């Protein structure tokens, strides 16, 4: 199946029961697949009038007690940013898939890129932390979609799957394990007296329990800066406290959230840093380089946000350099540069999108920097 279909199947396996979407190449297949499958499992699919509405409906459904998601590509991702901000502010669990294509604006609808990575990080206004995953195969999309839902529920936050046209449209074998072998998590539920319940009072892991509408908690949910009760409070202190909580629950759980995969890092002189489809290019390039006797390793970022800066820092102490491979003009590359902090030179193999990077290009860069 294609990466897009694997994503939809992963969502269903994770327990997603609401999809609010708007068609856009190359993410449409996810919506199409969900539209056929959701009614059978008691869920609901709706194609909204635009991506803004789609994202709003996803948040609404999340507060109704559903696991909900949407899928889009760059232009739609831009439109969703408004309500993604609302989702972050109201700490609403949901999953947003961005099957990236060439941008800016309408860009290259049928051709892939990885150039929305920074938009994922900073796309909505204000300071915040976000979780973004970048799977590199159809099988991994399946599993990472489940993981995305689990992280989203665990930390009450929107989670992004930053895939791309190449993987979205690539068909590969996907093994779907039986339901009892799939772990699905649910948002922590409040306990205790309903009239004393505080919607944003975190428990021990920094995340506040979350009821659903209609359960009698009479919650108030607002995109205004709010206190633990959820009431708007227009004050410096309230802002500080709210922001600290939103950042803490993510950054305080970095070890749980950040997933990477290392190949040949133990003896590597040069480390390729890559994610998504480019990680496959990098893997092929690494094998070719190794065959030529070049000690090259690969750090594949499965979680892109929060950024695995500790890993980079540790590697920077002992490697001769980093080569970041991504289909953009240097987004994660700048993060690597920041984390390496001058301890190791950082290079980029990237271009502005439309096609995948070939292993030859990476190999050439490896030879150039060796």
């Amino acid at each position: 199946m294609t990466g897009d279909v694997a994503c939809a199947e992963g969502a269903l396996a994770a327990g997603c029961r609401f999809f609010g979407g708007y068609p856009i190449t190359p993410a449409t297949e996810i919506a199409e697949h969900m539209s056929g499958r959701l009614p059978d499992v008691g869920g609901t699919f709706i194609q909204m009038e635009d991506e803004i509405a789609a994202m709003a409906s996803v948040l609404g459904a999340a507060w109704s007690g559903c696991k909900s998601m949407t899928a889009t590509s760059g232009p739609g991702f831009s439109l969703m940013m408004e309500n993604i901000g609302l989702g972050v502010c109201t700490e609403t669990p949901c999953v947003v898939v961005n099957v990236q294509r060439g941008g800016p604006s309408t860009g290259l609808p049928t051709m892939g890129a990885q150039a929305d990575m920074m938009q994922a990080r900073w796309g909505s206004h204000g300071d915040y932390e976000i979780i973004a995953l970048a799977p590199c195969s159809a099988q991994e999309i399946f599993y990472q979609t489940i993981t995305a839902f689990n992280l989203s529920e665990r930390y009450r936050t929107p989670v992004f799957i930053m895939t791309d046209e190449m993987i979205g449209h690539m068909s590969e074998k996907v093994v779907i394990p039986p339901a009892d072998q799939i772990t699905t998590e649910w948002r922590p539920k409040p306990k205790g007296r309903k009239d004393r319940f505080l919607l944003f009072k975190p428990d021990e892991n920094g995340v506040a329990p979350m009821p659903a509408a209609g359960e009698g908690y009479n919650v108030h949910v607002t995109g205004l800066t709010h206190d633990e009760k959820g009431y708007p409070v227009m004050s410096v202190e309230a802002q500080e406290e709210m922001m600290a909580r939103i950042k803490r629950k993510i950054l305080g759980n970095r070890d749980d959230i950040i997933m990477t995969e290392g190949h040949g890092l133990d003896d590597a002189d040069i480390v390729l840093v890559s994610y998504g489809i480019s990680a496959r290019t990098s893997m092929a390039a690494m094998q070719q380089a190794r065959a030529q006797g070049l000690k090259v390793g690969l750090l594949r970022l499965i979680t892109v946000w929060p950024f695995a800066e500790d890993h980079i820092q540790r590697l920077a102490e002992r490697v001769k350099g980093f080569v970041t491979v991504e289909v953009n003009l240097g987004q994660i590359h700048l993060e690597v540069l920041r984390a390496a902090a001058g301890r190791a030179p950082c290079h980029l193999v990237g271009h502005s999108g439309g096609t995948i990077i070939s292993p030859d290009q990476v190999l050439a860069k490896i030879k150039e920097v060796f």
Partner: protein
Amino acid sequence: MSATAQASVMAAPEHPLEDLIRSDRIPHIWCPGCGIGTAFAACLTAMKASGIDLQKTCMVSGIGCSGRAAGYVKLDSFHTTHGRAIPFATGLKLGNPELNVVVFSGDGDLFAIGGNHFIHAARRNMDLTVICLNNLNYGMTGGQVAATTPHLARTTTTPVGNPESPFNLPLLAWASGATYVARWTVLHTRELTDCIKKAITKSGFSFIEVLGPCPVNYGRRNREKPLETLRLYRDQTIIRNNADPSDLEVDFTKKVVLGEFVDKERATCIENYDRTCRPAL
């Protein structure tokens, strides 16, 4: 504070809507002379009177003065982004069809930035009750022109008069497929309350426009004293149920028609979805 004083507070008669209001958030932000409070009270009264399960009832608002209503109701309430109350409510209702979802918001929020969502929700016949407090301008941001501002009316962004023409909201709702449409002013609280009650208990997309004064921003710039606005509501309106929707322009130089204009049955979005997409269930 003395015990006596406390006792006197305790003894004070309870507000009839006490149980539905987050009294810990009072005072509210609405200005003196504003019509929102009246409309909000009518809405809460209607909710109570309708006998629906209030625990299963939510209010969703967008941004603006009216959008603050969700913050004052002691129900599950959602104060969303500007213009997006209806799609948020759509997700809420689809995610859990047992919920009664009332959208309470202003004309700027629902019909300018959120206009597209309004017509699509009406087209789908989403089972929502949408109450629009129409005060003819953007009140919260200081009185800018809105999609409902009358032709030639003055606002901060139309200092010499509005060159554009306003929406006829009931006509728009009717044309988009709403199954219940009514219009009242805040002066007509009894009729308004009855209609909201009817709208809440009726399935399908219900829309109620409530004309309410904004003396601070709109009234002041258009030489309309608060009381004069209410007088207009009394003198320049005419109640005509089932009126032709195209006759429903808001133009106080002529008579403004009030009443219940549409009350029809049509399968809701969820009924149609279940029937079409999961006939076996």
